[in-house]
């Protein structure tokens, strides 16, 4: 399948400040790629490098097979972009903004533009400075989508949108993908990536620390098990079990982390008199947060 985005050892540093380091990544045509990471991890730096708004310190970014620094205009012609933070023209109305950005692209399908306005429930007659944060986001979304781009670069796209509009937004994204578009979705909110993405990459401290499918991320999930014994805690009987780690004893309570199947733990526990057995599976969100935190993870 054709690669729409190819990052090869892409590095950007701002003097003494870290930007992104040795990012290797490919996004295939028609794919929805979720780019996850905490604030300041390097998500926006990566996107801005793709668009040639900033230049790589080393490495390459190829979009549609074109190196980002070689012909950015050719890339922009086929891209829709929603920045994470932006400002527009206070004195222009919503519709004037849409007209202007349509003109910069040589025109757009007016019917599609109108349908987006309607679906996002945007009142285009008001001046930009009068819009709420959510409505400003809607204007920017229509600007990014109205020319039916082949590649959508979306940085925190649902910021400020109410749940109903978010739902509409994801529907529009699915339609775009169905029509052949590729989507690079940057976010720090796992649930919005989970809804749409085929694959995800997790960036932390400027480095890509995990790359895989949503299911791969789910595989990282584990159980937190807590056993309360009537008598002494037989910790040694559990420590050697497969998948068990972080075993801790607190009075008559044994706590442990269990990766993979929980059956061996259940079978071992059945040999003792138990007062309580609690097993909790962390949400994907918690798993994701663990990736943000301390755990070393492999790439690929």
């Amino acid at each position, binding site marked *: 399948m054709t690669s729409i985005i190819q990052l090869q050892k892409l590095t950007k540093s701002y003097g003494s400040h870290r930007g992104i380091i040795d990012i290797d990544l490919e996004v295939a045509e028609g794919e929805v790629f979720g780019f996850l990471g905490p604030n300041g991890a390097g998500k926006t730096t990566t996107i*801005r490098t793709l*668009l040639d*708004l*900033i*230049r790589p310190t080393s490495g390459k970014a190829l979009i549609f097979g074109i190196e980002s620094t070689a012909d*950015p*205009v*050719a890339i*922009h*012609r086929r*891209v*829709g*972009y929603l*920045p994470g*933070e*932006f*400002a*527009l*023209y206070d*004195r*222009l109305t919503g519709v*004037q903004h849409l*007209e*202007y*950005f349509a*003109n*910069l*692209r*040589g025109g757009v399908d007016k019917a599609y533009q109108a349908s987006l306005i309607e679906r996002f429930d945007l009142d285009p007659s008001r001046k930009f400075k009068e819009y709420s944060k959510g409505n400003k986001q809607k204007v*920017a979304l229509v*600007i990014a989508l109205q020319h039916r781009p082949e590649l959508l*670069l979306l940085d925190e796209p649902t910021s400020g949108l109410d749940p109903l509009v978010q739902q509409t937004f994801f529907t529009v994204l699915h339609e775009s993908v169905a029509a052949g578009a590729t989507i690079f979705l940057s976010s720090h909110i796992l649930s919005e990536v989970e809804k749409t993405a085929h694959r995800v990459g997790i960036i932390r401290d400027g480095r890509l620390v995990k790359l895989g499918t949503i299911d791969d991320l789910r595989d990282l999930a584990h159980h937190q098990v807590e056993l309360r014994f009537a008598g002494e805690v037989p910790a040694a009987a559990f420590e050697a079990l497969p998948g068990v780690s972080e075993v801790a004893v607190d009075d008559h309570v044994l706590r442990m982390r269990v990766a993979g199947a929980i059956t061996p733990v259940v079978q071992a526990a059945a040999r003792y008199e138990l007062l309580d057995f609690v097993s909790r599976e962390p949400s994907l969100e918690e798993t994701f947060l663990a990736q943000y935190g301390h755990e070393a993870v492999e790439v690929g």
Partner: protein
Amino acid sequence: MATRATSPDRAAVFAPIPLRHKLYGFGSIYGKTIRDSRLAFIIAAGLLGGMSLVMGVAVSNIFPTEAARQEVDALFGSIPPSMMNLFGNVELIGSKVGTLGGYVTFKYGVIFALGTALWSVFALSGTLAGEAQRGSLDFVAAAPFGKRRIALEKVSAHLTLLALAMVVLAVMLTFSSNVFGQAALGDSISLLSSAGFALWVFFLALLFGGLALALSPLLGRAGSAGVAALAMAGTWLMTGLGVGGPLLALSPYSWTFDHVPLVGTYDWPPLALVAILGIVFLAIGVELFARRDLGVTAGFSLPATPAVFLGVHGPTARAFGEQLPRALAWGIGLGLIGILYSSLSGVLADQLGSAPSFQGVFEALFPGIDLASVGGWLQLYAELLYIAAGFAAATFVSRWASDETDGRLEVLLATPMARARWVVAGGAAALVATAAMTVLFAAGIGLGSASGGLDFGDAMLGCAALGLYAAAIVGVGFAVGGLWRTSLAAEIAALFVVATYLLDLVAPPLNLDALHELALTAHMGQPMLGQWDPTGVVACLVIAVGGILLGAWGMSRRDVAR
């Protein structure tokens, strides 16, 4: 289950904020306002102090003898009676116009006052209303102290800088007069006289700045600044030209008309009245800010730009749409000044022409300008207005730069528009805005000249010199913005304007010809008289176009800032 709200077991203990950070920096609203205003202060204090210093050097060099001073005394005779009071109380200045104090009062006294008051108007109209419009005031207002304290700290910061600028003015006047002036010819200015003059400037600035602050919660930044600036200029003209009838009683210039401290005449009670009124305005402004909704004005605003001029068809039209309100504001302002000046030029030229003995004096004052001709007077005005045209250009640069500094450029450059095209389109729009401003100025000159029955052809064409100079400043700003960073482009362009102005002002009386050559405005010829210097014209065009192209080249090579 019942819950009980309790205080924390113990309050968190933080290191105290150092006093120096509370006074300058991020330790308090006061400190941050001082920090944010440092550039304006440096420009204001630099101009006031620098001019004071230059006057001491220049007057003693140009009028070194008593005979020369007596010729200056005779200057008053050349001014039409109806205009006598525009530049101060001529009766009280009297024969002392030949002293440094009298000369400074007559030639620059009102300019110092108007310029300083304008600084206050812009600062105090914007300190709260401007920040409210940007939205940053919401964060400040959410801090654990009241709106009244926020307003007081911001106002105090401006008053501190204003007072410091006045100290610079007073000290430099006294220093300059005693070091460079000729004591035997009465040049020495005592510290009391300097302080009296600085207080007059300070209180006028306080009054009009206070008026802007008081109106800002109702009219917003632009509206309040406009009304206060109009009141400032209107009351001065009423007093100077003796028009307005009973309204003259409202003019602070009339109240303080007999206060001419630089010639040793003091009238303190009216000055105190100006101060009290200024404080009342400030108090009203602070109270209105404290009591009204944040950022909500009374709904009065300047007329919006017609949709047809907003420009959504392409980047050049869009950039011009953003520049148009500034171009109109500068053009109308310069045009009104042009009407006033040009309508008086004929009278002034006639007066001077009929008194050849004064011509020598004026030739020394304004070397190379024939003030016995109408065009000569217009040329003098043009020389004085170069700085205004330059600052206008710096504001055009600032508007263009805001695309990047505000974050719009991200969205713009994600379209199929090359970076160089963004710079060139912005540059073209700034040049068109400069042209629009120049046309309005020329219209004012033409209208004023026509009303005085004067030939206006050369003068109207001559206004293009200001436009060319402004275009060059645009080029400087775009080069800086493209090559380096847009966040400093307008500031550096403004510094270029100030440096050029001071060079053009200081170098000739001090016979520093080589230094004078560095001033772009020294190479424009006398276009109001139809005498153009091709060197300056070509230099302006090269700097304008070259600067924009250089900026486009630089922009293509650097990262876009966030």
